[in-house]
């Protein structure tokens, strides 16, 4: 696996290189936009981490050039890593074809997680399997396995579990859940959702999966346990 880091601050570039080396990747470093542009012509990368405020050639131009050239090199996933946090910059970056956008300063674990996700998406597309601790959710076979054994869940419960798993660590509103399960018959009201959640919690008790109730907002599945 080969990545290109485009960053003009040597201290940050060094930190990024060390961190991503630990993930077992080969890292190339460009300290200005022009050399990054040059390297992107001759080499196909699995991921490009791109700063915006670069000497010689701006990050937006590097990105636009890359996407314009196209080909296998031109489709490399790009993560913009920048100090500019305005909405316009974000939108412009994503419009130009960036795959993700992270503002400085950032938490290293978050950057690593996003890099992993981008590389995975670039290689295999979206994974059909969601792994959450001892729980494994097969989005194609539509079943949930606990320690390899299938859990007894209804179609609606499965849909709700899938939504919660995909949004682990984030609040999911009752409306969102209702939207997900309305494919299975008529749209359930808020009370029905509460009933389904109650059942889901019971069935997941042994899996050490906690579905929290967030007052006035909805539900939250804790972030997956580390490891």
């Amino acid at each position: 696996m080969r990545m290109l880091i485009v960053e003009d601050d040597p201290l940050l570039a060094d930190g990024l290189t060390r961190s991503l080396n630990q993930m077992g990747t080969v890292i190339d470093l460009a300290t200005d936009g022009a050399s990054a542009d040059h390297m992107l012509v001759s080499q196909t990368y699995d991921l490009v981490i791109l700063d915006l405020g670069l000497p010689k050639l701006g990050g937006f131009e590097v990105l636009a050039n890359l996407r314009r050239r196209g080909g296998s090199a031109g489709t490399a996933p790009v993560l913009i890593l920048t100090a500019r946090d305005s909405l316009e910059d974000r939108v412009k970056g994503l419009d130009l074809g960036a795959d993700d956008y992270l503002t400085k300063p950032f938490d290293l674990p978050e950057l690593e997680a996003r890099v992993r996700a981008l590389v995975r998406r670039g290689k295999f597309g979206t994974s059909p399997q969601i792994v959450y601790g001892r729980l494994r959710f097969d989005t194609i076979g539509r079943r949930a396995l606990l320690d390899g054994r299938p859990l007894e869940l209804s179609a609606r419960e499965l849909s709700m579990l899938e939504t919660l798993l995909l949004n682990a660590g984030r609040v999911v509103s009752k409306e969102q859940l209702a939207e997900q399960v309305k494919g299975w018959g008529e749209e359930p009201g808020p009370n029905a959702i509460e009933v389904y959640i109650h059942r889901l919690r019971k069935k997941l008790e042994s899996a050490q999966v906690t579905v929290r109730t967030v007052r006035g907002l909805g539900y939250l599945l804790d972030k997956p346990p580390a490891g």
Partner: protein
Amino acid sequence: MFKEPSLRRQLVFWLVLPLSTALIFSGLIAYRLALDFVSKAYDRALYDSALDLSRRLLPRSGGLVIDLPPAAADMLENDELDRVYYTVSSDRGDLVIGQRDLPPPPFDPDRRPRYYDGIYGDQPIRLVALRFPYDPDDPQAMALIVVAETLQRRDLLREDILVAVAGSQLVLIVMVSLATYLGVGHGLLPLGRLRRQIEIRSHRDLTPLDEPHTPVEVRPLVQAINELMMRLQRAIAAQQKFIADAAHQLRTPLAGLKTHAELALREQDLDGMRDRVRALILATDRSAHLAHQLLALARAEPEAGATAPMAPIDVNALARKVTSEWVPKAIDRGLDLGAACGDSPLLIQGNAVLIREMLGNLIDNALRYTPAGGRVTVKAGPLDRSAVLSVEDDGPGIAEADRVRVFERFQRLNQIDTQGCGLGLSIVREIADLHAATVDIFSGANDRGTRVSVTFAAVSNEPPPRSA
């Protein structure tokens, strides 16, 4: 009419045009009057000739004769420039002397002299006609006297008058134009002086411009400029203080950063080093937070905020969304963060990015200062014609005496508190001001904790109520 407005051009145009028109009219009137007087004087001379003739009339045996010696006739007829014609006839129509074919008067002549114009031998002439009693014994016996002269002298004089009047008016117009042009220029000098005064001024020099020496018409302009200067001065002073404060504030986490980094370098024991590095990350987070807050404040300032586009926003939906985003952080800190917002849209006119920033700051504050196990609730709802957005916690609360002070920049309530950077509520206040909203601090439910509420003017969903 003109490419760009010019005061001098306008003034000159509006002064010279009517003045010139008036001068041309007055010239015309003077010319006509002069002609009239001249004509009267010459007519009078013509009448004198007629009188002269009348004195020479004599009655003779029921008829009329005239006593006109050749020398007198010559004197009457021959003039330097003009020819003089005359005719004297009796009532009965007998010609006594003179040219019979002079144009007859178009009126019935009497004893008063009356004048008329005519043509005689291709020449325009002026004539006078009158009747005269010539016989003292017979007052009914009348003689008709007509005297005429060519117009050479009158024409010459008319030309002279025309040249004199037109010339003098022309000189007047030129003088008035020149005087106006120079006068306006002189009058506008203070503007030029003002311009030079501003031109040579350094952009750092914000002292007021001289006011007493400027004319009253320009003084309001100078006063307006001076007022702007004063506002600028205050704004710049505030900015400078803010930058100095910010730099000071930034130094503290940087000092912590450096200290812990140096300690980490010196540390032999791996666990000890980890502790130092953890402190390093904490100090970094604090400086990053400060940088974010400074940026947020800069964006919320009226100068920047004036350009922030405003649109109708559903406060209920926005409050739910922003609160949801903060839930993971609340869980990390062992706090129960929830929301109590209405389901139907509650609209206000505002900038979504700024209101999100404001609410984020309120939630962040509550999460920072509420001890683990506490409860933080974000509420949104209507109140009369307002929309109220509030964040309530059951933490230590803010003493009534401190509730004004907390809005000041870099103000933290106690020295032990090293969590925030003291900008959160300043940001909230700035954003509220931009939205013409008010911020109030209350105690929470049961007199515990803090409730910070922001009251916006609601955008009415329904048509405004009709007045009875």
